């Protein structure tokens, strides 16, 4: 259950979005409708862009293990955004453990 990610320390919001449009499919946590739509749209954009960078890196260095990209993290001043598959989470830097959050997102995306 995606909602259970909110039980992890420091996780403020989580969302699952549609791969084709970036529209939110499920959103949990304290985000307005508008912010939830912005977050999932940006997450889809960032996912596509990171995937493109991973594909190029793999071609430039001719080395396996980089692509397909699994996820990304943008580390902000007080908050951080983590993306994995079609899931995205907003976390509080002071409280969250990023490894725990990334593992939970990976597990959630595996079973969704």
């Amino acid at each position, binding site marked *: 259950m995606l909602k259970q990610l909110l039980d992890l320390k420091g996780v403020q919001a989580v969302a699952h979005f549609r791969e*084709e449009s970036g529209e939110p499919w499920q959103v949990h946590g304290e985000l307005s409708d508008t912010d939830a739509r*912005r977050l999932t*749209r*940006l997450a889809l*954009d*960032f996912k*596509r*862009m990171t*995937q*493109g*960078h991973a*594909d*190029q890196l793999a*071609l*430039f260095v001719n080395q396996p293990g980089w692509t397909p990209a699994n996820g990304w993290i943008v580390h902000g001043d007080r908050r951080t955004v983590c993306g994995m598959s079609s899931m995205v989470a907003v976390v509080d830097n002071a409280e969250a453990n990023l490894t725990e959050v990334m593992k939970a997102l990976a597990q959630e995306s595996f079973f969704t």
Partner: protein
Amino acid sequence: MSLVSDLMDQPGVVAAGDFAYRGDQYYHHKGGLSAADTRLISSLCRSNAAAVRMEGDMLAMFSRVCQPSAGGCGFEPVKGWVMHGKSRSVCVISNVYCVVDNERGSLGNVLGMMRERLADAPDFLN
């Protein structure tokens, strides 16, 4: 005639092609690039298209004057981009790319042809 062939007939066009999926597949390619370079340029074009698409989305979401509710600025969804190099440029519209020699080619003609022929193309990132 396909768009890729028509682009190659334009003066100064060095290579042209299209990209599919994540850029590692393509249907058409013409020009003097090796198979490895073709795969690289189609992957690069797809990747940059995704980045530029995000910037268009951001203008629509975060710029007060570009929001759809304020009339929009017409940037979203982004249809393409041009990278101006020192002696060559890369143009992308939809899922078609074209490499142009800056001295011999006309970006205006190339982009005009691409924009006209790809005006109704479906969203290339899905």
